[in-house]
């Protein structure tokens, strides 16, 4: 037996060598392709940045578009001193923050009821939540358009052309999805934990606020980031339901006001787009791990 051990040992030794050589090459190729893909994935945002730092004259000059000869912050100064742009930004910020608060309130409480308290029809409702999450806004904006007209005729409340209408509308996109994530996070909390709380004398509300919310905090952070991202990025609803410049949110505002006919002021458009992309990007940069954990946990829209 000792014999064979020695023999196999000898024959595998060169193999180890080739294996590690294979691995080095695999690693080199991996890095090579990763760099290629990173270039592809990062090209548009980088080009945004490059363009935003150029003057109009340089943009229309026929030279290397990837190079900035006279970097300037003029586009940023122009845009940020425009009252209009600040209004877009304010509208977007208020809408997104309100939607986040509303969404988290509704979905955390509902998810707790659905995950732990089981009532008649709760299983059906959980499935229903998931199904609503799959219904795209492109299917709903036309009937909503008509429903708003009906609300105006019946109650005299004009929902059309107001930025705050978005606070009512966006939760249809964010709540099902945040509830779904939270159900998943709550379901992963061991049942014994709420039983221990029950024996310790906690009411349902105390169990939620003192045990579940702190324990599921990573999930709540993930759901909050997603809700914010979705609310900030939403494009179809504000495009369909708001028209006056004072009522627009950022993405729609940039596209409808900065693009005037055939005159494209690309320096300012790219600056606006970059500033519009900044809040989600900044949040992502700081809370990336929560974002990715939430994404893979059950958030599966994209």
């Amino acid at each position: 037996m000792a014999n064979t051990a020695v023999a196999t040992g000898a024959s595998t030794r060169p193999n180890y060598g080739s294996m590690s050589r294979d691995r080095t090459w695999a690693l080199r190729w991996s890095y090579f392709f990763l760099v290629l893909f990173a270039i592809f994935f990062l090209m548009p945002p980088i080009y945004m940045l490059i363009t935003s730092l150029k003057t109009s004259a340089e943009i229309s000059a026929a030279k290397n578009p990837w190079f900035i000869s006279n970097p300037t912050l003029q586009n940023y100064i122009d845009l940020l001193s425009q009252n209009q742009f600040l209004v877009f930004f304010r509208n977007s910020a208020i809408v997104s923050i309100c939607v986040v608060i509303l969404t988290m309130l509704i979905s955390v409480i509902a998810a707790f009821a659905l995950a732990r308290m089981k009532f008649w029809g709760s299983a059906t409702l959980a499935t229903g939540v998931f199904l609503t999450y799959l219904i795209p806004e492109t299917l709903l904006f036309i009937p909503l358009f008509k429903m708003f007209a009906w609300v105006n005729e019946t109650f005299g409340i004009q929902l059309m052309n107001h930025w705050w209408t978005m606070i009512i509308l966006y939760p249809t996109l964010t709540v099902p999805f945040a509830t779904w994530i939270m159900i998943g996070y709550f379901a992963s909390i061991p049942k014994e934990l709420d039983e221990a709380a029950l024996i310790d004398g906690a009411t349902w509300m105390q169990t939620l606020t003192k045990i579940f919310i702190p324990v599921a905090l990573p999930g709540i952070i993930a759901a909050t980031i997603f809700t914010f991202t979705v609310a900030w990025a939403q494009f179809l609803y504000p495009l369909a339901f708001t028209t006056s410049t004072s009522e627009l949110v950022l993405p729609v505002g940039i596209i409808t006001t900065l693009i005037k006919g055939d005159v494209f002021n690309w320096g300012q458009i790219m600056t606006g787009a970059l500033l519009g992309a900044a809040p989600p990007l900044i949040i992502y940069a700081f809370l990336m791990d929560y974002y990715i954990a939430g994404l893979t946990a059950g958030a599966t829209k994209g």
Partner: protein
Amino acid sequence: MAQVTLRKVVKKYDEVLAVRGIDLDISDKEFIVLVGPSGCGKSTTLRMIAGLEEISGGDIAIGGHVVNDVPPKDRDIAMVFQNYALYPHMNVYENMSFGLKLKKTPKDVIDQRVKQAAQILDITELLDRKPKQLSGGQRQRVAMGRAIVRDPKVFLFDEPLSNLDAKLRVQMRTEIKKVHQKVRTTTVYVTHDQVEAMTLADRVVVMNGGLIEQVGSPNDLYHSPATKFVAGFIGSPAMNFISCQLEQAAGALRVRLNDTLSFPVPADRTARYTAHVGKPSLMLGLRPEHITETKPHTESNQHDFDMLIDVVEPMGMETLVYFTVNGREICGRVNPNAGAEAAQSMTLRADLSNMHLIDDSTGKVL
């Protein structure tokens, strides 16, 4: 006074009976262990006492008050869970004081009680750690501390040691016993491990199929099991069961295992067994320690026989030998120096004064 009384307690899950009407009186300061295989209803019973499961029928009383409709928090109980169920976001101190805080207990009282419990359990230096930073044994102590702090009428333990490794389990077992001796709180403890049950309990309740098989002190259960189930469940290695017949010859009884093997029944059992002579489904129950190697002197009711040994398992302080009778594997415990060897014949000695006769059709020990 904190006795616990169960009267005809039934638990139904959608027409499936998990607990089929059990009666149990647990007296004050007693340490009761519910033991049985998984699915026997022991955990369900404990959870009904805790108030975590609704009772489908019967009554449960704690300290003389029926608590069927009382929510868990008002039953004055504390529970230690299998996975400890420590609140992961709170440190040890907060975990232990959470229940008292919800009851609006004054801060200094909480502090004093937590410190005292921590001292009993020797976890004082862990008070500001989070559960994540604790070892399994330490978590176990904290879970117990959380229960002690509340100074409840009844402690409930749901398989508290099954997540620990073997060595720690033995250590914590002793720890639990010590704590009980200090605080003397009525305790109901659920486990599937019969060794745990035997070592901890004042009285053991053996459950099977939603019913109580037998209640008794550890020694009672071991030496006089009431049913075949209890006989087989308590003790390790398990009791041997060999199909047999009871014969009567010249006023004396004999258990006949097969054509070649039969033993005389001890004289003091003759009266008890005579009625069962010739019954078809009898079984002889004999624990492994009552099948030994031959010894220089013979006591009454000991009988030697020769056997071909199949397998030998040396355990250090003893050696287990396995052989086959009537197609069943039988285990005996012999001295390591008795010279047991596989595939060799060996003379063994059966101690019939510790025999059990079982009616296999009813499962009752006769």
